């Protein structure tokens, strides 16, 4: 048995370590997910004006600040008792604000944080075995995904064109966000009762202009077909089978042409999504399309036991057709991307926020209880330096991340869970295709395609919000004052790019904060074992994986564990979010009212 540790796993937000035990065949037999820092974030909201929360909690995360500020705004709406009255146009502005952030964050992830691993030298060695075709594929991967300051065998490699383009598009999206939100990261805009700014017609014109520029990138770089065509034939396909067929037919055309020409460039129609869709999967690439080799990402990052995993979405984006106000419990079907709990066998259930709780059994915190509901959470970091030791094994405490669960089950959160809850035909269809052919139905490949698919789903909605739903002469906030927040509680359920995000707040008779809690997506995804000893989602997804590139196709290389990189990064980890110290609360445990 060999111990392979990745510390730090870079190209994520924050500081993260993974310990694995790997056998002689190069298969991971045990994994530990470790958050390496304490930030103690929320304690400082206690005794303060609750309205500050929308601006302060976003500083948990500079990648998805928008999500935190909007989750906080939702919690504040309910705290002030105005959730029924938030004007429709304010809700549309919040949708646009979040939508742009989701696309920017996903783009950065797909290209810069995750995509860079496609330029790992292991793929040079792998594709190098497949003649001119293989060499052409490797050249294309390196040309697109080489990161800044990259060297291979002492040779400087120019920055990848897709990596660079993604940074440019992210910047463009941040400019679009700041048209209404002033700046990005850490925009303003989200506020109790609505938003702080009503866009003018000129703003809307500029927004549309930014939008179309980003769509040019999507068409020419990412997809190779127009986003409208893609969405029409996938999200709005009449069946999952038809959605899958649309993609497969497109890939087959490209493959047939390029296996002759050995041209896998953007110009030949190989957008970044098709290139990954074809060469990322053994089933699709090798079995169905007839490619000589693939990265076999569909064999990795799945869950072996369907009884210890679920997929959870709280739902996001208000429906403008419902008019003013919204239901803070996010009942089924009330949001554009709906709430839902999908069990390990991929069956969809109704979401119930009361089933969320957190365990600290394996985390460096001090508490008499090992499991608590968010409303009752406490966080007292371990004060004894000698107790902070990451090497004591899985029975011990080994992370600053807590372990949330839904009805006792650890859950994966993020685009994949949302696409499953939304029953997106393409993602459902692909999951079935894999499951029916002896592959894990959910895997690292599907996780990445779901993220790409969500970019397109959200983009098509943004266009509607900007051009159809948003009325610049509408109302953008209901008036509030601090006295409305006396002795109250509020819950904000929302979705960050990385997954479901919840903020909980309570106040005392002086309207000051007595409790603040944020339960965030990376806490779920990167959780350590819970009180029952069930490993967290990333820990489960790593076990059984082969450690080296393409299922150890070139043998076992412990020193370049690409298998760990791909799967762990596919969750888009955000440690600043995961470890913010859930609790501004102190000891206040009394419930004020039942939501």
């Amino acid at each position: 048995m060999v111990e392979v540790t990745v510390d730090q796993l870079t190209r994520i937000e924050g500081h993260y370590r993974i310990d694995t035990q790997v056998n002689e065949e190069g298969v991971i037999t045990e994994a530990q997910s470790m958050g390496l820092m304490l930030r103690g974030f929320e304690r400082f909201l206690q005794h303060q004006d609750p309205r500050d929360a929308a601006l302060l909690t976003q500083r948990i995360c500079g990648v998805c600040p928008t999500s935190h500020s909007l989750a906080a705004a939702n919690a504040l709406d309910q705290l002030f008792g105005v959730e029924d009255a938030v004007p429709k146009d304010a809700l549309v502005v919040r949708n646009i604000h979040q939508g742009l952030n989701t696309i920017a964050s996903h783009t950065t992830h797909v290209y810069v944080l995750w995509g860079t691993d496609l330029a790992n030298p292991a793929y040079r060695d792998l594709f190098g075995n497949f003649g001119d075709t293989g060499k052409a594929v490797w050249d294309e991967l390196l040309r697109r995904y080489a990161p800044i300051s990259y060297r291979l065998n002492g040779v400087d490699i120019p920055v990848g064109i897709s990596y660079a383009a993604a940074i440019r598009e992210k910047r463009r999206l941040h400019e679009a966000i700041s048209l209404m939100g002033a700046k990005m990261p850490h925009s303003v805009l989200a506020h109790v009762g609505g938003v702080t700014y009503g866009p003018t017609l000129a703003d809307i014109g500029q927004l549309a202009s930014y939008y179309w520029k980003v769509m040019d990138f999507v068409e020419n770089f990412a997809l190779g077909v127009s986003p409208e065509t893609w969405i029409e034939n996938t999200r709005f396909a009449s069946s999952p089978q038809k959605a899958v067929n649309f993609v497969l037919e497109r890939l087959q055309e490209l493959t047939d042409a390029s296996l002759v020409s050995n041209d896998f460039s953007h110009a030949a129609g190989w957008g970044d999504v098709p290139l990954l869709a074809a060469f990322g999967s053994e089933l699709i690439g090798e079995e169905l399309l007839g490619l000589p080799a693939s990265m076999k990402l569909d064999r990795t990052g799945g869950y072996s036991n369907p009884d210890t995993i679920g997929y959870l979405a709280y739902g996001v984006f208000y429906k403008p057709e419902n008019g003013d106000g919204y239901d803070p419990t996010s009942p089924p079907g009330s949001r554009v991307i709906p709430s839902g709990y999908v069990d390990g066998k991929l069956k969809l259930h109704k979401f119930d926020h009361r089933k969320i709780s957190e365990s600290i059994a394996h985390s460096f915190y001090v508490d008499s209880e090992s499991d608590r509901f968010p409303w009752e959470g406490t966080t007292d970091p371990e004060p004894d330096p000698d107790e902070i030791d990451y090497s004591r094994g899985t029975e011990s405490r080994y992370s600053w991340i807590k372990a949330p669960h839904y009805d006792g089950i650890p859950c994966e959160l993020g685009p994949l869970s949302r696409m499953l809850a939304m029953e997106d035909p393409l993602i459902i269809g692909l999951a079935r295709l894999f499951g029916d052919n002896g592959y894990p139905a959910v895997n690292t490949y599907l996780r990445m395609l779901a993220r790409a698919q969500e970019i397109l789903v959200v983009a098509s909605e943004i266009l509607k919000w900007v051009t159809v739903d948003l009325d610049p002469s509408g109302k953008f906030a209901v008036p509030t004052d601090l006295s409305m927040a006396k002795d109250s509680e509020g819950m904000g359920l929302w979705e960050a790019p990385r997954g479901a995000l919840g903020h909980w707040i309570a106040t005392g008779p002086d309207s000051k904060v007595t409790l603040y809690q944020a339960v965030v997506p990376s806490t779920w995804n990167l959780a350590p074992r819970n009180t029952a000893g069930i490993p967290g989602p990333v820990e489960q997804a790593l076990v059984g994986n082969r450690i080296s590139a393409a299922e150890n196709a070139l043998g076992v290389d412990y020193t370049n564990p690409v298998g760990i990189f791909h799967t762990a990064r596919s969750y888009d980890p955000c440690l600043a979010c995961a470890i913010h110290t859930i609790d501004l609360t102190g000891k206040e445990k009394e419930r004020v009212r039942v939501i």
Partner: protein
Amino acid sequence: MKMDRRTFLKAVGALGASLFLQTYRSDIVKALEFAETRIVWIHGGECTGCSESLLNGGEPDVLQAFDRLNIRLEYHELLLGQQGIYVDGEMVNTSELNSEILFEEVIEEEGYILVVEGAIANGPKGTGKYMILGGKTYKDIFREAAENASLIVAVGQCATNGGVNSADSEIKDLMDFRGVAFTMEDGEKGMLQELGIEKPVININGCPPHPDWMLLTLGAVVLGKIKVPDDLPDVLDQWLRPKVFFPPDHVIHDNCPRRGFYDKGEFDTVVGGEKCLWKLGCKAPYTHADCAIRRWNGYHSLCPQSGSPCIACVSPGFPDSSRPFFQEIEDVGLPGTNIDTVAKVAIGGSLIAAGAHAFRRLAMKNGHKGKEREDELGKEIGKEAGKENNKDEKGDQ
């Protein structure tokens, strides 16, 4: 290599020529060494918002800026290909793949600019064990990186002053997060002082900092417009911030797009309006930064423009010195202030604002004549100030 004018302009062009020249008016450098500059960028207790902001910067873009300025980003956990890899506890592979080996190599080479993003945990009990990376405390990592650096640039409020990590709470002392040279407003409690390291420091405050503030400062150092350490006492303020971006005699309020409403005494009391945000707690009259002139993300906005009060995220005591965000400062009882004195401060501010306009006009007219322009600018400010003062006195009579 020697740099001729063409090379200089090409490098400056990467930063947005007009922006750079406006900021560091150039009597074009006759000849200077233009070797590769190495940057080591480390992350502590942070949200990565500063790196995100960096990526929003530069004209045409940050990658090209680095390329033209001959900057090599040697280490950056978000952007580089490497990661830390250990087999049975030993570092493996090479610096091309392993970030831990890379880090050791670049630190050993010395002579780099160290950029620090995020606060440094000192807790619990001075051990720094609240953040352990690659088996080492971040406090030790910072120490190693700082000791061999030629200059430390702290970017963002967490690194400059502790920021949100150091905000008041019941666990603040336990965590004991530190900024590089300050913790909140305390100059004794920076991590450098704690470790007994003396190095030149530039603070780029802000939550996050404007990308121009970071890139133009780095550019100025690389191009020799700021000589380290000789020029630092002149170009930095008491908080070690470049005065050009955080002008001691200028506040955001001076150029606020809602300023006209303030002057007419028209104030919003609930969000979503278009008037002055003073009564909603705006801190712009106290906040020294060029946000309102430079503006953000594509140079088109700033917080008050979007209807949200300035929260003074560049001030050393942020966020505690700005809270509560949405209450009029008068109510909070900031020492020595009431609405009358604030109004006087504000009138003083408008004079400076007039000066800023004059500055712009001159910049358009005269191009880059350095000293001469400054002198004229001084005269013009004096003139406008005189006018305003007279008017004011008449009004009072």
